[in-house]
């Protein structure tokens, strides 16, 4: 272990790859998503009508926080061109004669267009344009009813006889930062833990020093591996606690269940990623192969965990694969503890699954012992 501490501080890679990467990622994601929701998304209005009502519509739309009218034109191709250049996410089109047709009850049509190629921008623009289209209709009805001499409160209920009150559980602001960073940041930490674990063991193999390391531990595999990984594990766990505190104490993301259980879940996740690292180097006892395959495998965890695109819509074999990703289980614990405030029992299966990774690594460890003692026989390409 002393040997390991020396090695750990002798090479800046370990500290940079763990502390440095985590610190940077934390600052990066939290500052990037600081605003939380998409505001002032650029859109274009194609105003072929140039009437008082179209002017008012543009004015009202500009006043809303979610979109920003970047372009007012009377040419649809111009707006389409701007969209293809990525300058705007939506186009609201008011046809010629809109006002004239509206007041003569000819039911003129409003058109709006959005892009699916940029999800957040396109959606935000879409929702606002949809609201605007409904507002136009409502505003005109109000005018007609007013002329008929009805009082405003009566009109209000005529226009809006039915309302849906939306409740977004645990994230009432629909905040993207809360949504994304809660899973991405622990995911990156897990990735770093796994890669470094592979690296510290694999490097001994690569340098053919593993037998020395084993000899120092009296060829006792348990002592060797504990001595090797304990300093890193302490470092990872500290990073885990730091990560948890940064998200839930410092920035103040909501936790509806238990703080302790959520943090415990994160620490279990770190253990399981470390175990996955050990398993990788056990199965592929060459540093480069274990690192490459490990990286490819763990990167899939981000998509497979299902926090962006839900797991329920994935094909059955893909769904099955997702259970082999520790991040999936951590994410489910997070949903239970931070969002749902569910009973502890709900998270138990996932905690056990995380422990399962550690168990599998332990079961495979006799092979690792063999590899370590006979490191000179394992030729590096």
């Amino acid at each position, binding site marked *: 272990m002393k040997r390991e501490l020396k090695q750990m501080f002798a090479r800046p890679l370990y500290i940079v790859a763990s502390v440095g990467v985590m610190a940077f990622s934390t600052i*990066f994601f939290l500052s990037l998503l600081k605003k939380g929701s998409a505001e002032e998304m650029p859109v274009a209005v194609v105003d072929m009508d140039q009437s008082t009502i179209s002017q008012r519509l543009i004015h009202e739309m500009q006043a809303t926080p979610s979109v920003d009218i970047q372009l007012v034109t009377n040419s649809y191709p111009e707006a389409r061109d701007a969209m293809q250049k990525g300058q705007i996410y939506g*186009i609201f089109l008011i046809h010629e004669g809109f006002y004239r047709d509206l007041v003569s009850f000819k039911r003129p049509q409003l058109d709006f267009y959005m892009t699916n190629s940029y999800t957040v921008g396109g959606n935000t623009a879409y929702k606002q344009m949809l609201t605007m289209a409904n507002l136009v209709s409502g505003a005109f009805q109000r005018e007609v009813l007013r002329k008929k001499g009805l009082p405003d409160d009566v009109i209000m209920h005529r226009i809006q006889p039915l309302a849906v009150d939306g409740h977004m559980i645990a994230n009432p602001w629909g905040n993207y930062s809360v949504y994304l960073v809660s899973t991405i940041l622990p995911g990156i930490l897990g990735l770093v833990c796994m890669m470094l674990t592979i690296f510290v063991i694999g490097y001994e193999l690569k340098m053919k020093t593993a037998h020395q390391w084993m000899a120092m531990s009296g060829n006792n595999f348990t002592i060797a591996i504990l001595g090797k990984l304990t300093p890193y594990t302490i470092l990872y766990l500290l990073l885990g606690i730091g990560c948890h505190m940064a998200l839930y104490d410092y920035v103040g993301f909501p936790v509806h269940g238990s703080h302790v259980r959520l943090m415990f879940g994160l620490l279990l996740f770190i253990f399981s990623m470390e175990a996955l690292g050990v398993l990788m180097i056990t199965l592929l006892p060459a540093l480069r192969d274990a690192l490459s395959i490990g990286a490819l495998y763990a990167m899939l965890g981000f998509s497979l965990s299902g926090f962006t695109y839900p797991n329920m819509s994935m*094909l059955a074999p893909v769904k099955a694969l997702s259970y082999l990703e520790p991040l999936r289980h951590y994410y489910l614990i997070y949903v239970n503890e931070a969002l749902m405030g569910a009973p502890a029992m709900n998270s138990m299966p996932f905690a056990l699954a995380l422990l399962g990774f550690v168990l599998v690594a332990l079961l495979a460890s006799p092979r690792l012992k063999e590899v370590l003692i006979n490191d000179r026989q394992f030729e590096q390409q």
Partner: protein
Amino acid sequence: MGSNYTFVFTRELKRIFTDSGVMLIFFIATLAYPLIYKAMYYNERIEDIPVAVVDLSQSSDSREFLHKWNAAPDVKLTHTCASMAEAEALLKDQKVHGIIFFPKDFAAQLADPLGQAHISLYCDMSSFLYMKGIYLSCNQVMLESMRNIQIDRYEDMGMDKEFAWALVQDAPYHETALFTPTGGYGSFLIPAVLMLILHQTMLFGICMLAGTAREENKVIYRTVGKHRSFGVLHMVVGRALAYFVIYYALAAILVGFFPRLFDLPHIGDIGDILRFNVPYILACIGFSLCVSLVIRNRESGLVLLISTSLIFIFLAGVSWPKEMMPEIWRLAACLLPYTFGVHGFIHINSMGATLEQVEWEYVALWQQALWYFAIYYIVMYISSRRQEKIANSQKLTANSSFEERVFES
């Protein structure tokens, strides 16, 4: 002179093809990853999100509403609960991802000409796609029901049916998703991932090659022959050409043919895409070479840089709109070939832009390529001079020994 380029070029190809780690990253990862992503997002949109119903009004109005909503592909009303507590328990068990609640007075409020009826909708926020599916589909049904109620109420006021109808539908609207009307999550994300795969596998692979060279302390990545400046130029061009040949072919497969083969958006002109790839691949090579300058050994690059894949996809402004990013990150994004590459590609491939319309990105990529190659060349030039000085001071017959070692390898 030309033979020197050919020499470096073929030697680099040999290095790539005899290195299993690099082969794994350059070819296997690059070709397997798109398939895995396509498989993950195969269904594109999420359908039949389970929703629990709490209907205290037990009216024909609420039943009609639920019937209409259940017909929407997005949701499936799986559970009927007697109370909110029961529904909340289902939500906590993740059996449902939403709850719709009708209060007791729902039907009465609708029947009252001055009433306003309320529906409460609770959405699981563990994935925003749940919220989107539940919220938007419910909203559609709500708007449709509302129009019917309005017409009824106007008729009750004594308007004739046609006028009431015209008033309620005074300005009907039509929404169109431009370019990729049926596109779901995969259609949005996979094109961006394809460009990222090219960028990242190249970065990891080149760093691995550079790290290996450093470890083996080969002079070959430093300088070639006695004509020093020419030598560095030969080396840079020869190596870049080797990467370019491989990656241009990979890019053609990935962003040229993959979307056509696997039913992803591909409305752009293939010629434009292939032309756009030229500066993209060059900029990626230059960028990767510059990053590889600081890589000390073959594996550390992967350990250090693996998490950049997530950072880059956000930094480029794909997952999160660039308009919402702090200024400093927007500037940092300009250093990245991926930023311009991914937007240019999405505009051409998924939105049907022409090469002229992505001129901004196209020119930016050429500039990046130029800058990165210039930086790499200068650093290599300086380090080769320093090496020569050391060699001279060690009283080695520097030039000839360099040459010998180069041609031996």
